[in-house]
């Protein structure tokens, strides 16, 4: 409580806190690398050898999404650029999602290297010309005189799908011959990446792999949490920063916070999801309540782990809920076999006839409309593609909700008629 008694005018700082932390969470450039010192050393040594000695190399950085592959390479490149070699290195950054074939990739490489067939932002020449031009350029170079080029290929696996893997073959081939020094660095989340490479390409790859596996435990996770939330020492208002960091320290020792983090850690170890959690929590603080509390974190966690379909179900009308329940029963009866609208309608009619006093009997077109709405929400899915001629009533459908989801959603559904709820628990409840 003593912390909150501090109420001088800190609203400008408050904005700054949010800005600093949001930047950190979104761009994930800040901070130490966690538990990847060995990998980092391997990578930076490799890059230095390329930059300083002109030794060609190729390496793959492999790790699940959000494990810090890009962060690792960015850190390494930053360090490389800080040491004296900065002017001696050319960088080419490609992304498999953007450069979807070799033609585009080649133009981009040529542009980034600023070769002489580039005018302004345009690369001239056909695909074949560009390829031979680039190869010629790279071939001309040698270890001691040419500027080394660092190729960073993000989403490396997608490059393996290019025709003949021409680009990869040539990059690896150059990295294995006495031409311009290259460092080819591929980032991918696929563990089976080597199987994607054609044997000639594979043979030319050096088989260096750097694995990032989130290999930290929970205590380290808490440490990361603390570090990610702490304000830097160069924050303008020292007093506020101190208080903030003190609060973060308290949080990291709080039991309920531990519980939240443990839950989160069990689901997802990667830092990106932690950032997401903290981001949500951070947006809950206000000028009048400028410090994070464990409640904020708890709510953030709840938001993050919410079931999205249950949320959709909460917004449905009673009729639509009824249809879903009818489908659930059909699934139970026919053991997951697909159903059509007519079956659902019949099931619904049976229920309405039994409980005529409590449920309004809708016209068939209205029910159809509700059914279509469910399809639009993708709670049900047609088995085949809808053709123009087919009769809607008889199109086979499948329900994309699980029984547990339906029951959980019903429990929280506002103003659910008791009869409907009872019907949901058992199709035989009228007996």
């Amino acid at each position: 409580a003593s912390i909150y008694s501090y109420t001088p005018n800190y609203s400008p700082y408050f904005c700054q806190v949010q800005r600093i932390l949001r930047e950190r969470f979104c761009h994930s450039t800040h901070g130490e690398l966690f538990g990847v010192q060995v990998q980092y050393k391997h990578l930076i040594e490799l890059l230095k050898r390329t930059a300083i000695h002109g030794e060609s190399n190729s390496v793959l950085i492999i790790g699940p999404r959000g494990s810090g592959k890009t962060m690792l390479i960015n850190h390494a490149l930053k360090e490389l650029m800080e040491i004296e070699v900065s002017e001696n290195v050319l960088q080419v950054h490609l992304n498999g999602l953007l450069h979807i074939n070799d033609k585009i990739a080649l133009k981009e490489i040529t542009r980034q290297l600023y070769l002489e067939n580039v005018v302004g932002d345009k690369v001239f020449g056909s695909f074949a010309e560009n390829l031979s031009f680039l190869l010629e350029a790279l071939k001309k170079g040698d270890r001691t005189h040419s500027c080394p080029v660092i190729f960073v290929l993000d989403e490396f696996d997608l490059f393996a799908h290019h025709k003949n893997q021409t680009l990869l073959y040539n990059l690896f081939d150059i990295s294995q011959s006495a031409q311009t020094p290259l460092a080819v660095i591929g980032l991918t989340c696929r563990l089976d990446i080597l199987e994607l490479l054609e044997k000639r390409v594979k043979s030319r790859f050096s088989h260096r792999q750097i694995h990032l596996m989130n290999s930290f435990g929970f205590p380290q996770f808490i440490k990361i949490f603390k570090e990610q939330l702490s304000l830097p020492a160069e924050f303008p208002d020292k007093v506020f920063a101190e208080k903030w960091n003190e609060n973060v320290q308290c949080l990291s020792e709080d039991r309920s916070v531990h519980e939240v983090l443990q839950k989160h850690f069990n689901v997802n170890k990667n830092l990106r999801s932690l950032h997401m959690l903290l981001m949500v929590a951070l947006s809950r603080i206000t000028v009048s309540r400028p410090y994070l509390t464990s409640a904020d974190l708890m709510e953030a966690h709840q938001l993050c782990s919410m079931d999205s379909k249950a949320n959709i179900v909460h917004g449905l009308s009673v009729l639509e809920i009824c249809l879903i329940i009818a489908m659930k029963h059909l699934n139970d009866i026919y053991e997951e076999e697909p159903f059509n609208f007519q079956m659902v309608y019949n099931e619904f009619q049976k229920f309405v006839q039994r409980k005529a006093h409590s449920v309004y009997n809708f016209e068939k077109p209205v029910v159809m409309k509700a059914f279509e709405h469910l399809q639009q929400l993708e709670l049900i899915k047609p088995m085949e593609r809808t053709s123009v001629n087919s009769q809607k009533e008889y199109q086979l459908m499948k329900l994309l909700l699980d029984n547990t989801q339906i029951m959980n959603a019903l429990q929280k559904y506002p103003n659910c008629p008791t009869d409907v709820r009872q019907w949901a628990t058992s199709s035989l409840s009228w007996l």
Partner: protein
Amino acid sequence: YKPHSKKRARVQWFVRFSEIHPSKQHLLGRKPEAQEIFWYDHPSCDSIVSVETIIGTVQVVALALDESPPAQLKHKGFFVRMSWDTKKFWPLSAELLAELGRRGDSPKSQNPVQAQTKTAESPAWTTSEHAVGRIESSHSASKSRQAAARPATPGARKRLELAGLLKTPNTRKARQTSCAASASLGIAKRKMASSTASSPSKRSSPDEAREDKSSSECRMVLRARIPVTSTTEMSLGITLTPSRRAQRPSVTPSINLTPENIKKRETKEPEAHTEEVSTPHRSQRKSSLLTLNRIKQQLRYLDCKENDEKEEEFVPGAGDSDSSSEEEEEGDVSTSALPRTSRRRQDKNLQTATQPSLQTPSKTPKKTPRAPRHATPQIRSRSLAAQEPTTVLEEARLRLHVSVVPESLPCREQEFQDIYSFVESKLLDGTGGCMYISGVPGTGKTATVHEVIRCLQQAAQTKDVPPFQYVEVNGMKLTEPHQVYVQILQKLTGQKATASHASELLAKQFCSGQAPREATVLLVDELDLLWTHKQDVLYSLFDWPTHKEARLVVLTIANTMDLPERIMMNRVSSRLVGPRHFSHGAALSGDARRCLDICRRATEICELSRQKDGTQGPVTVAHLMAAVDEMSSSSYITAIRNSSVLEQGFLRAILAEFRQSGLEEATFQQIYNQHVALCRMEGLPYPTMSETMAVCSRLGSCRLLLVEPSRNDVLLRVRLNVSQDDVLYALKEE
């Protein structure tokens, strides 16, 4: 044939803002002023250039950072405040400033000359446009005179020193190469050098101009990249003082009527000259005028001839409207020559450049940038030399790199011998043939063939075998099989052609056998990539050598032994001779590249462990094993061990589901239900569907699972990409 100019000039390099790499322009941090240029501080610029390449002088005023440009600069001339070293803008260093200043840049000092010119009958020339310099004739006589005159001409703006080197045929060549080199730098620089003095013998006649055309092609390229400075500003102010009249004879040649200049559309320079000449001293310059007139006639003549070729546009230079004399018309022309337009013109008859505008200067500015015709494929060179290895391990690493060509190719002696004798016999017989070489990747196919070719080339030098031409193509380095024709043709003859045209030309060359040529050895690497449905590429590759006159030996390399039988039709494979297979004998992998990479990695591991415990041990087997492990170990198990609790739970649920159903595939919904059941059994809170779905897609993205790509939602089918035993093993270990 008259000797060419022997002059070299020392120039200073400046760069316009627009010529600085666009990505670096922001470094200036402000907008450049209209007449601002930058001292170009780059070691690669050759400050000695051929006199002939010089257009004229230009006025450059050096300023300290805080000074504002002098008023009299007006529209002509430039001022320099900062220097640019390709990385950063710097203020001019004190000594540079002093140097520039000393060289006569102070505007005041120039006034006398300006006045002089002004009064001299070219009213359009304002004082400010006086660029000017001193010329030093390289001829010793005039040189000494000039040296003396230098201090005497306060208005000298130009710093041009002609280093009068006597020109030998070689020097020209040297110059050309240096020009080419600077051209390839890719940054267009402006040469602010000016007037030249050349030997009287050089007084160019139109004939010479034409003769020279071809030889100066190379320099043309250079020119193309060097924007012509606004030529109005280039006047050779030197001889304006009566005291210098003695110099006249040597000045006339300096008009640079050498063909290079004309071609470069720098005719302005001569014009500028003429204009100067038409100052009070005109009468004394009859001889030079005469020459000029002759040139003009020649130009016109060419003009008529090549009128139809004009298609270049010209943007008028800033100050070209002021000329009234006939000669100045030509001056205009060159002024308007755009640096940009020069590109296309390179290939053309250069004189045309000046012509069109003479008649109808079309003034449409160009909108789209032109494709550079003569772009040199080159990666920029490093500014800091690569370090040589210092320690034993570094040295070892260097030698273990796959790129290093070993002195011998162990275990390939037999293959080497086979290939060598095959090619040698064909060369000696003057016949052709082809050979198919196969072997899995990394067995040294290409390396062996390269070695064979190297030996044969040595033998050819000592006349042991007839000389031959060697061409190498690689299927993987082509965008499309038919491109192979283009590459072969280009490497054989230097011609450029489309694929179909190239194929015709090559067929003609090899099959019709016209003039006796030297034999050709063609290496086709990665042959299987050249497969097309019609097999026309493979067919022609194997068909050419069968023609006696072709004298073509084709060596083909691929990594499948049965390629000829498997993918080639009979008519193709029947033309193939002598397959040669490379095999290997290593246990783990026969890939020599792999082996070298492992060794290289082992040295790194060794170095790392040395750093750790400060020992000095050699590379041991342990290091090698560590490297092998690192490179060949499967990462699936570590990945599973390091995944989160929920991810591991999901994998368990998959195993349970598979065991229950007896199948190797299940829908997400089934697995989820299994997962929930497992959690209930252990009394754990079970995760929501969304969370589990996220887990599933994460495992799918790193390919521990194979997941359907579609949006099947809960119905999506899931398989394991690892064996169940591995998963079990990885999960148990915990």
